[in-house]
């Protein structure tokens, strides 16, 4: 179905490709310079190929921040949040979308408002509360907080999906004598799996990328997440130029991996989320 190309089409394509190169140039610069020694960088600049394959910068950063521990924290926090937030969203949406409880419109508006208010407006009271109950500087403070914040969005999305659930299926399940919980767990959840998996992936990545709340609640080195560890070390400006580059490289590798693994789910989700 490719129609005839004119020279203007080639011109347009060239412009789009140049734009795309500008967009990925920072990634390439980071990749190349993470494998240079500081003296190589000083002598040959940022644009040259590394003269030797130098991995001390990456190793230095890896050990300095104890990167595996940060990765573990981020995976644990983002993973648990996405599971808990989906569970809470499913329960809420069952009551709102299937149960059609009274005042459901207002409850949905409440959840939506919660999703738009800035986190700063909750930050100090939450900080105070977690200090009181001994969860300050504990990853559970972040897990609980984001379970609620993400499930506010999940409730909104799943409620509208559940409210159009095929009635015949529900009727058949009820005739078979399934209890209310069995209908949710064995009928509605399996059939809604595409939407639920999109939510799982999104909650994971959103939580992984969060900054303000982990920065405030997780102060000790051992509890930090990957983005917080990289950003705070950058702020101290103690690292040489190629180690800084290596830190950025290590920060972007996990998200690049998620992107490659979940690419299809992501594009499905992004486009579904915009129209609703």
């Amino acid at each position: 179905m490719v129609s005839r190309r004119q020279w203007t089409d080639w011109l347009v394509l060239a412009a789009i490709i140049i734009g795309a190169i500008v967009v990925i140039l920072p990634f390439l610069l980071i990749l190349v310079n993470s494998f240079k020694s500081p003296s190589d960088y000083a002598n040959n600049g940022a644009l040259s190929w590394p003269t030797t394959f130098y991995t001390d910068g990456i190793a230095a950063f890896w050990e300095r921040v104890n990167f595996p521990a940060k990765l573990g924290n981020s995976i644990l926090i983002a993973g648990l949040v996405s599971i808990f937030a989906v569970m809470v969203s499913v329960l809420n949406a069952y009551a709102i979308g299937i149960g059609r409880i009274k005042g459901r419109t207002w409850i949905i508006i409440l959840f939506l408002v919660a999703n738009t208010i800035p986190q700063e407006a909750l930050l100090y009271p939450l900080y105070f509360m977690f200090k009181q109950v001994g969860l300050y500087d504990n990853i559970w403070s972040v897990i609980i907080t984001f379970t609620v914040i993400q499930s506010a969005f999940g409730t909104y999305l799943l409620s509208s999906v559940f409210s159009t659930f095929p009635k015949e299926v529900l009727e058949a399940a009820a005739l078979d004598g399934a209890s209310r919980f069995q209908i949710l767990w064995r009928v509605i959840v399996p059939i809604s799996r595409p939407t639920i998996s999109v939510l799982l992936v999104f909650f994971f990545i959103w939580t992984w990328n969060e900054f303000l709340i982990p920065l405030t609640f997780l102060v000790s080195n051992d509890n930090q997440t990957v983005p917080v560890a990289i950003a705070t070390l950058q702020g101290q400006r103690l690292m040489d130029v190629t180690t800084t580059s290596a830190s950025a490289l290590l920060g972007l590798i996990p998200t690049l991996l998620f992107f490659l693994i979940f690419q299809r789910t992501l594009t499905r989700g992004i486009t579904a989320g915009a129209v609703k």
Partner: protein
Amino acid sequence: MATLPAQLRPEGTREVRRHRTDESLLPGARSRGFWLYLIPGLVLFTVIILVPFVWNVYLSFTSYRGIKPPEWIGLDNWVKLLGDEKFWISFQNSIAMIVAMVVVPTLLGLVLAAILFDVVGKKFGGRVASFLRATYYLPQILPIAVAAVVIGWILRADDGALNQVLEAVGLGSLSHNWLGSPDTALLSIMVVMVWVQLGYPVVIFMAALQRVDPELYEAASLDGANWWQRFSSITVAIIRPEIFVVTLTCTIAALKVFGPVYTLTRGGPGTSTIVPSYYSYSEFFQSQQVGYGATIATALTIIVVVLTIGFIQAQNWVERKEREI
């Protein structure tokens, strides 16, 4: 004959009964029984969002330094806020963030999406188009703080890549302490945000363009419309819902920007890159002026909520007008 009123149908009575408001979608189950499922969600919501939110509003009427209990001072913080030059500068900078995260990405994204869909997709094949789309989307997946580190690295003062490139091409006089000078620091952060945001409208708009009926385009071409005329009067009109969603969500995000400012400049030099969220954070945890920090955070919330309501009203108004025509 699906439009017949329910009463006229033989099973009309059952239809009406089914739509009673206190009944769930499950046959024979009252909706009251479903409250049980909402309890965990509502309890969590109350503890983590509702209570802290109300508490924060209360703190904005107090003098509180985090140690002694808050002391009620009425509207003092709010009066101070209205006369606080730093606060107004932080909002001016928010407008710069809206330019960088909403205006530029939406306009550029519209043109890019239309070209990718219309020219690249149709003349060079869908695979080329989706590969280029993925490239433009790539910065979107980065944690915003990591994206800031990446660009901050390129903009380093003495040995950064950008300054080196400028020197290499003989423009060494243009090299600059990009993040450390008041005249370019805000601009540098804006560049980070454009880079990060651009992919989002491109992906959304390309998906929306699939709704555009090709026959409309052909008809317009036959009438002598050029590419730009078709783009502005057909494409933009049809994907307007997506344009609304993108501008609304990105405007909210722009007002909340925190990570790049914290990572790259901490609001400086001076107040040249301060934004409301960073200002309230520094009042909370650096100046220990918790009451005043809460006031800034509450003011930001009011602006976000008012803006959201205004946006939705505007969208409804436009849709109503459309239907009248």
